């Protein structure tokens, strides 16, 4: 008998809100966290807007010691640790440097790349022949698993501690990997999530591919327009999301607050066949991923009431919705409510799946659907598939039980997870 898995803690560091309460408020208000960045302009970026969480030095010093902050220059690890510690505390645990090692809790915290700015510092020194002067933390800040290493040490976790990486699918994949570990009885709790650095050295490659919008440098808050007829590319974001997953038994035993249940999900790849490429999805594999996620959750497609899509604001949005429509065999007024968190935070890349899953769980828990901002001009191809009132541009209150979250990434990889309101 596989164990039921519930969510007992949330943490988030997003461009439009740091901490669950600020982020929830922003989701309700449809507040954009996208801003113009002079640095991008100075570096001749086509897209000069982006989403960067607002973290003060005061806040940093609440999570990191002065020693940890010496020579620290890895924004992804910063965001990941803040979100992770918040989720841990939210689940009712404390952070005590002398705590007893907890063999029942593990950590899967993903990222695309780590400490890019730190790496740049190191490369400059190294190319000048000064490798001896790099200091002791270049490896820790630039290894992919840096965030897991920092975070697990802060919390004293003794189960599996690792980092996954699957482009923009990373966060959603981390949730499902942690879910399986608990489901199979290998851990009682898993802190899962993902993070992404901000800044030109992460975003530059996307700018060069011309997949980011260059049309909103003077109107940053209108820049991220998933599902809009005038969508012209994504807006880069950054941050982290974190969730404490826990076996239902363990959560009940300690009387923990339960946000939602993770019913199940699916992870697959389109293998870059049948139209799939390094950068484009194989539609059949996407549909299969959604169908299998529903099947693995033991529910019917008709039970999905809200979808938090990948929906980046590129030309692929209509294709994504077509895939949802085919996989669920639902359209028009029968299509679930649709939610594009990226309209407010941009595309947070490796952090996207985790931040948007946190957004999904918050909406489920508080029974609302957040506004899709900047899609007053719904794309005509999408309007053919989904009744426009199911793509709200203002917040709506909705009693619902089930939300599906999917993420798709470069390399033709897919992940879909189903969250349900907890019922005994």
């Amino acid at each position: 008998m596989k164990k039921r898995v519930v969510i007992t803690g949330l943490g988030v560091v997003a461009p439009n809100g740091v901490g669950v309460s600020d982020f929830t408020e922003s989701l309700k208000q449809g507040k954009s966290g996208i801003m113009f960045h002079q640095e991008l302009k100075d570096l001749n970026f086509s897209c000069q807007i982006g989403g960067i969480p607002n973290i003060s030095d005061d806040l940093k010093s609440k999570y990191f010691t002065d020693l940890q902050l010496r020579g620290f220059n890895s924004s992804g690890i910063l965001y990941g640790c803040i979100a992770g510690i918040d989720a841990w505390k939210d689940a009712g645990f404390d952070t005590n440097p002398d705590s007893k090692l907890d063999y029942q809790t593990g950590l899967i915290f993903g990222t695309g790349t780590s400490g890019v700015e730190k790496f740049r510092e190191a490369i400059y020194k190294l190319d000048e022949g000064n490798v001896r002067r790099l200091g002791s933390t270049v490896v820790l800040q630039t290894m992919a698993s840096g965030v897991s290493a920092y975070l697990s040490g802060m919390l004293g976790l003794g189960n599996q501690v690792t980092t996954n990486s699957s482009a923009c699918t990373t966060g959603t994949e981390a949730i499902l990997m942690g879910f399986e570990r608990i489901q199979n009885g290998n851990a009682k709790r898993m802190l899962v999530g993902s993070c992404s650095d901000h800044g030109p050295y992460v975003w530059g490659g996307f700018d060069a591919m011309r997949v980011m919008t260059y049309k909103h440098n003077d109107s940053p808050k209108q820049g991220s327009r998933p599902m809009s007829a005038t969508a012209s590319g994504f807006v880069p974001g950054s941050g982290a999301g974190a969730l404490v997953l826990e076996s239902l038994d363990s959560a009940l035993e300690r009387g923990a607050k339960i946000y939602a249940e993770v019913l199940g999900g699916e992870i697959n790849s389109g293998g870059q066949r049948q139209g799939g490429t390094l950068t484009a999805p194989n539609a059949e594999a996407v549909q299969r991923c959604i169908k299998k996620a529903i099947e693995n959750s033991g529910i019917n497609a008709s039970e999905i009431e809200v979808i938090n899509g990948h929906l980046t604001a590129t030309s692929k949005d209509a294709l994504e919705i077509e895939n949802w429509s085919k996989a669920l065999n639902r359209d028009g007024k029968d299509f679930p409510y649709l939610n594009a968190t990226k309209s407010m935070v941009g595309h947070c890349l490796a952090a996207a799946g985790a931040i948007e899953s946190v957004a999904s769980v918050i909406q489920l828990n508080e029974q609302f659907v957040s506004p899709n901002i900047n899609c007053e001009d719904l794309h005509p191809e999408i309007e053919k598939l989904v009744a426009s009132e199911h793509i709200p541009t203002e917040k709506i209150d909705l009693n619902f039980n089930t939300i599906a979250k999917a993420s798709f990434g470069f390399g033709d990889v897919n992940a879909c997870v189903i969250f349900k309101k907890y019922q005994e």
Partner: protein
Amino acid sequence: MTNQELIAKLKAIVSPYIQDEEAFKNLSEDTDFVKDLKINSANLVDIILDIEDEFDIRLENEDMEKMLDVKSAMAIVNTKLAG
């Protein structure tokens, strides 16, 4: 520079890395960086870099290997400054 001045400078340099306040308060020539001050051994390379910056000297790998306590650090810094 007197020994007292040198110790004061070294004390300021190691202060961000120490994990034992009591041993740090009583820092003397005999204080061991790792055993007494409980400095993470990985941070010894950072201390070396900070010493290089403070005294405008260059420390070689051999110097680094020897620099395990306050006394040896003082000796190495004095040698470099004299050289």
